[in-house]
């Protein structure tokens, strides 16, 4: 398929996942900070915003939400990722299922009524509407190159978000609620509890890295990314084993993970760079972006 459309499909996937991930994170973080006593709030807000890669010094829960909600032109923020997702969807509208773009518009409409004072409800609306978008995609999108690039983008973004979340080490600031909040912010609490593992900080961290039952664990997402990239390779008849190396290494490290906590931390911190390297590799191999050319004479 056209490189331009593949690139948009990939980034649509990443931004959709980012929007969903950040919405969940913000709901939980906001809850955490609101219920907290004053000593943790300032430090906690700074910690979280730093972990999310945001530039700013929020001192309260509200400031954190404002910063993370952000603005349309900063794709590292929630609003920015929704905006970028929609822009990309617009560009590939003709190859997406017909209701998809409308559903995207519906998500954007939710941002028109965002309440910074009571963000929980607004974030839930965004999440619900994103669920519709995802549902339409799951049901109606044919398994073509575009779909594979989109899912590839989502898988990589999920890995990245998970690694950021785990790097926050919420349990250091919030001894009691840390682990549960971490699980809730990726929708994993019930799954974890069903496995009847004690709710410890280390248990949660290990789970979110290596679980093969929870679809958002780093291991599962890496596996998915691997599969999608191989599908693309088959369709385009181009090799991808060099691009897959960082993720492959990550997967094998997770597979042979022992109880060494340092090993776990290494994997978590390596994930972000693995995602970045993989993204670069994909760009060079398949998109070869040109950027906009301005001619002089």
């Amino acid at each position, binding site marked *: 398929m056209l490189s331009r459309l593949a690139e948009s499909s990939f980034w649509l996937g990443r931004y959709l996942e980012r929007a969903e991930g950040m919405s969940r994170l913000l709901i939980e973080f906001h809850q955490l900070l609101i219920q907290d006593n004053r000593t943790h709030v300032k430090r906690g807000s700074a910690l979280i915003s730093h972990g999310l890669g945001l530039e700013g010094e929020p001192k309260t829960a509200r400031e954190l939400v404002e910063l993370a909600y952000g603005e349309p032109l900063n794709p590292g923020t929630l609003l920015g990722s929704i905006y970028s997702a929609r822009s990309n969807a617009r560009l590939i509208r003709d190859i997406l299922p017909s209701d998809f773009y409308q559903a995207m518009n519906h998500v954007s409409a939710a941002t028109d009524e965002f309440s910074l004072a009571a963000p929980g409800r607004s974030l839930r609306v965004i999440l619900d509407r994103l669920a519709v978008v995802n549902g339409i995609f799951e049901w109606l999108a044919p398994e073509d190159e575009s779909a594979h690039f989109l899912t590839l983008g989502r898988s990589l973004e999920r890995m990245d978000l998970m690694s950021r979340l785990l790097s926050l080490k919420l349990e250091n600031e919030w001894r009691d609620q840390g682990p549960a909040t971490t699980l809730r912010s990726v929708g994993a609490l019930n799954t974890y509890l069903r496995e009847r593992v004690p709710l410890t900080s280390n248990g949660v961290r290990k789970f979110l890295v290596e679980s093969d039952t929870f679809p958002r664990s780093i291991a599962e997402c890496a596996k998915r990314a691997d599969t999608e990239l191989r599908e693309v390779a088959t369709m385009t008849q181009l090799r991808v084993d060099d691009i897959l190396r960082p993720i492959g290494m990550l997967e094998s490290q997770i597979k042979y993970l022992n109880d060494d906590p340092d090993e776990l931390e290494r994997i978590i911190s390596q994930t972000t760079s693995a995602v970045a390297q993989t993204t670069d590799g994909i760009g060079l191999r398949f998109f070869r972006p040109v950027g906009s*050319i*301005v*001619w*002089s*004479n």
Partner: protein
Amino acid sequence: MAWRLSVTHSTSFQYESEVSASFNEARMTPINTPDQFVISHDLKINPFASIFSYNDYFGTAVKAFDVQTPHTYLEIVSQSLVETSTPVLGNVNASWDDLSRDELADDLREYLDYTALVNPIEVPFELRLQKTPLDAIHFLNKAMREQITYAPGSTSVYSPASEAWEKRAGVCQDFTHASLSILRSVGIPARYVSGYLYNGSGQIGEEVVGESHSWVEAWVGDWLPFDPTNGNPVAEDHVLVARGRDYHDVSPLKGIFSGGRSRKIEVKVSLTRIA
């Protein structure tokens, strides 16, 4: 008597930042005419680019090429070997009445209309008072250097005729545009000619620094060449490359490029009389 001239025209561009792609058309190849024979021509480009040749609407030999590897330096060297002779004139004795025929005005419309560069100027003399159009040409050829002084740097490649006319200064491009404007204003079809001028002593083997040059061909029963910048006749020392309505149709190198801040251009022309 025919001359054999070797012409080397090199153009180089230096950029501060990389050019990612550049597409160009060179109009530097002399053409075959009844008065000129092209023995050989070669265009060398650095970095290497393959060349596509064709003849354009005006009969000019065009060489198109593109460089799509990043570069900060581009050099184009055009090398020609031509045999030139004094133009043999046809019947250049049309009367003013002949020029006013509708059919002629229709056929040669492109050389009678103003363009962006050949725009109207205020002419202090009345060419139509001359007995014949040919006389008008001779008059104009002498008059131009009284109207404009040859002064490089006073105008630019984009200057229309009126600019040089007001400044009373310009280079050969301006002399040519102004002459075209005056001729067209009195109904004499006239076209822009580009090429090279050999400015040397005529000594065999002596390499002479030359220039891209332009002059005029006016239709007065047949096409008559003349050189308003220098006032001397167009002879073996003129090598003809291209004809058109104005400079835009014949510019030696035109194209587009992306990237490449601060472009510095260097042009060198040299001619040597071989025989």
